[in-house]
Each structure stands twice: as C-alpha cells, then as structure tokens.
C-alpha cells in the first residue's frame, strides 16, 4: 500500500487523533497563558521574584519531556485521567516561553513612556492595560507562538501515557516497525505545527504593525 492509500484508508483514525492532539494542546495553551502571563506581569512588578520564577520554569523545560510525564504519573489526581496528565505536562512545558516573553516585552517598553505615564497620574493598572501590555503584545504573541509549536511536538509523547493524539500512530509504528504508521502520526503533527506557526506569525505581524 502506498503512503497515500494508507492515509486514505486510515483517514477516520488520523482525524480523530489529530483532533485529540489539537484539543490537548489547545487546553494546555489556555492554561499556560492564563498562568504564564499574570506571572510574567508579576515578575515585572516584583523584581525579587524574577530569579525564582524564571529559574523554576527554566528547570521544568530542561526535564526531558518523557521524564516529565513520568514524574507526574504518581500523582493520583493526574494519573486518574491520562489526558489530564498530558495537558498538565504540556502546560508546564509551555510556561517558560510565555513568562519570559511577557517579562521581556513589558520591560522593553521605553522607560520614558513609563515615567511620563506615572508622572501624568496613571495608576499602575492603567499603565499596565493601556500602555505596557499593548506595547508588549507582539513579543508576548511570539512567546505564545513558540510555546504552541513546541507543545504540538511534545504532545506526540502523550500517547506514551495513553492520552491519545497523533503520537499513537508514531508509537504503534515504532512497535510494529512500520514506517507508514510513524509517518501517519508525524506528518499531520508537523503540518499542525507549521499551521500554528504560520497562523500566529500572521497575528503577530498584524499586532506589530503600527499605522
């Protein structure tokens, strides 16, 4: 069977796996953004937190992905549902780029602007929402983009803990020594990563463009 025929034959399964994949990554990214951006903002306000927060997220990133999944297994609430485990691991992995880019983006705002904003009577909240975040937005988007692309790749490992996704095909292919299965998982995953990269890239450009 040619690769094309293989894809057509397993079309239903591949689509299901792809949707599981996207859903895992999507939920994980929402969690990472929901936690990462506020943490990034916090670190710009409390400089003493910078070393611990960036240090810990850095540390999490250095853990090999499979090992991270393994570390989380013993935790009862997470192990109860394998996709919960996978999503948690993916969210943890995505934290560093988001926190770091939020921090860098906000710190990159011209100090003169911040000084004038404060000097004219903007509260900290007003400065954050009207000035710092809009100006940091394209940097933050870049962080989200990188995190998403990485997460799509790491999510293939989720299959190792039974969470589904395109990794299933890869692992099955490895076990059966069948290249077509491996490719059936790898190619859609790569396409998803490229699509995410492209899509977020467009969004970034749109946000960065000042008329």
């Amino acid at each position, binding site marked *: 069977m040619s690769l094309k025929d293989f894809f057509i034959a397993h079309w239903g399964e591949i689509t299901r796996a792809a949707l599981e994949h996207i859903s895992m990554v999507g939920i994980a990214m929402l969690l990472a953004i929901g936690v990462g951006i506020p943490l990034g903002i916090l670190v710009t306000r409390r400089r003493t937190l910078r070393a611990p927060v960036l240090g810990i997220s850095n540390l999490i990133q250095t853990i090999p992905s499979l090992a991270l999944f393994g570390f989380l297994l013993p935790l009862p609430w997470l192990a109860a549902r394998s996709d919960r485990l996978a999503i948690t691991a993916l969210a943890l992995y995505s934290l560093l780029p988001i926190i770091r880019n939020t921090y860098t983006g906000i710190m990159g705002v011209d100090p*003169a602007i911040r*000084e004038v904003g404060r*000097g*004219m*009577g*903007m509260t900290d909240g007003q400065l954050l929402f009207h*000035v710092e975040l809009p100006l940091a937005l394209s940097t933050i988007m870049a962080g989200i983009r990188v995190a998403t692309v990485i997460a799509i790749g790491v999510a293939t490992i989720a299959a190792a803990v039974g969470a589904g996704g395109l990794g299933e095909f890869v692992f099955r292919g490895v076990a059966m020594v069948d290249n077509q299965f491996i490719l059936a998982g790898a190619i859609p995953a790569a396409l998803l990563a490229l699509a995410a990269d492209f899509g977020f890239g467009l969004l970034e450009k749109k946000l960065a463009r*000042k*008329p």
Partner: protein
Amino acid sequence: MARLCQCMATARQVIPKTRATPKGLPDVTIGSPMAGQESNAAIEFVNVTYRTGEGRVLLANLNLRVQRGETLILLGRSGSGKTTTLKLINGLLVCQEGKIVVEGKPLAEWDLIRLRRHIGYAIQDVGLFPHFTIERNVGLVPQLEKWPPAKIRARTEELLELVGLPPSQFRNRYPNQLSGGQRQRVGLGRALACDPPILLMDEPFGALDPLTRADIQKEFKNLQRRLNKTVVFVTHDVREAMFLASRIAVLDSGRLLGVYSPAEFLQSREPVVSDYVNVLRSEMELFADLEK
C-alpha cells in the same frame, strides 16, 4: 472625585483660556524676587534631603519656595540635583528628610494620583505613546479623568492649535511620523490638557536643534504670559534660563546656592553663578571678535 472633576471642567469652560493675571493675586512681573509673599507659594521645600538607595546624597537641606505664577528655572550641571528636585514635587521620588508642600497641602496628605493629574509633566524624551494617535496622546489625562468624548476632542483641538500644530493635519498621525520639534509641542500640549495650575518641565527642549529650540522657547514664553501657570523648569542651558526665567535657582552638588532674578544673576559674585555669566560673556566677546 468625579464630581470635583466635572465642576472643574465646567469652570474651565467658563473661565476664558487666556488670563491676564492670576485670579486675585498681584501682577506677576518678571525679574522681581518676591520676598515675604508666603501665601503665594505654590510649592515649598522645607529642609528636604534625598538619598539614593545606596546612600548617596542627591539633595541636601533644600529650602525653596516657588511663587504662584512664576517660571522658576532650576539651573545646574548634570548631577546637581535639579531633576531630583523636580521629581520630588510630583512624588516620582520620595524624600527621606524634610517636607514638601504643594498648594498649601503637605505631600503626605495628597493622593499622589490626584496630585499628578493636577500637575502637567513634560520631559526631554517626551515619552509619547507610540501606539496612540496624537489626539489620544494629548487627550490622555482628560480621558483618565473620564471627560465626555466630545469635550476631549474639543480640548485636544484647542491644544493642538495652541502649540502650533493644525489639528486637521496632526490629529490622526502617530508620533513616529512627527519631527522632534513637533513631538515636543505635542508633549507640551499633553501637559496642558487638563489646564493644570503647575507645570513641571525637565529639559523639554534639550534634544532639539538650535533653530527649533529658539522657536519653541519664544512660543513657550508667549504661552506663559497668556496662561500664567506656575512653571518649574529644569535646564543646564544658561541662555535658556536667562530667557525664560522669572527667577533662577542655581543648584550645585545637591545644594541650593541661591535664587536670583535674571538681573541679579548677571551681577552675582557667587563663584558658580559667575562661572555661568563668564560663559555668556565670552560668547559675546567671541561674536564681537568675529565681527571685526
């Protein structure tokens, strides 16, 4: 708080923009030191000392009174404490010793946000928000004060006219489309937006070329005559100081050497002041020589 702003806003509509004299106060004439007029103090420093986090003293035992309606120039070298003095007024810096009184109320009793919206602030880098149009930039404080949009629009038009930038042309542009001089004018307009009684200016014309700077200084002087605000103006340019000042406060290494009218400044025997005067004199001599 919102009520107060509404009242202030209505009052502004009634009081004409150009006032010959500040309400109820004697004519402010440029060049006369105003001794003994304590009730006229818009800003007062009482024994103020400011130290950095590392303990370096940037300002030592400052005693200074800024009269209402005057243009007080803070003149000194880099590091003399002039910007520190300015930033103490709107609370961007907090002094460790001493007391600062703004409009009769000690700084500690002011709500800092309210105070800052009551004071116009213009700095050398201007600090226009690059993602706001000129109109939004100028209308910043009115918007923070929740003025109705129509009123903000009218006010920004008025201000752009005032600083010499035709609103129809400049309203919808972005800061990166303007020259340095134009940006400074926008910064000035922004500082004047809520018609604050006090203006703090930190070397606002420093980054401009000599021609643009001369233009803008002349316009500022005219503006000051019309609007009669209390202005505290930091500069290290003695020529600018002589041109714009009602009085010049000379700072050196964190200490106030004295406050002089321009005429007194020229005649002073104080060493630092005569250094400045010598600079002016040698320039004049140079021109005289060149003309021969």
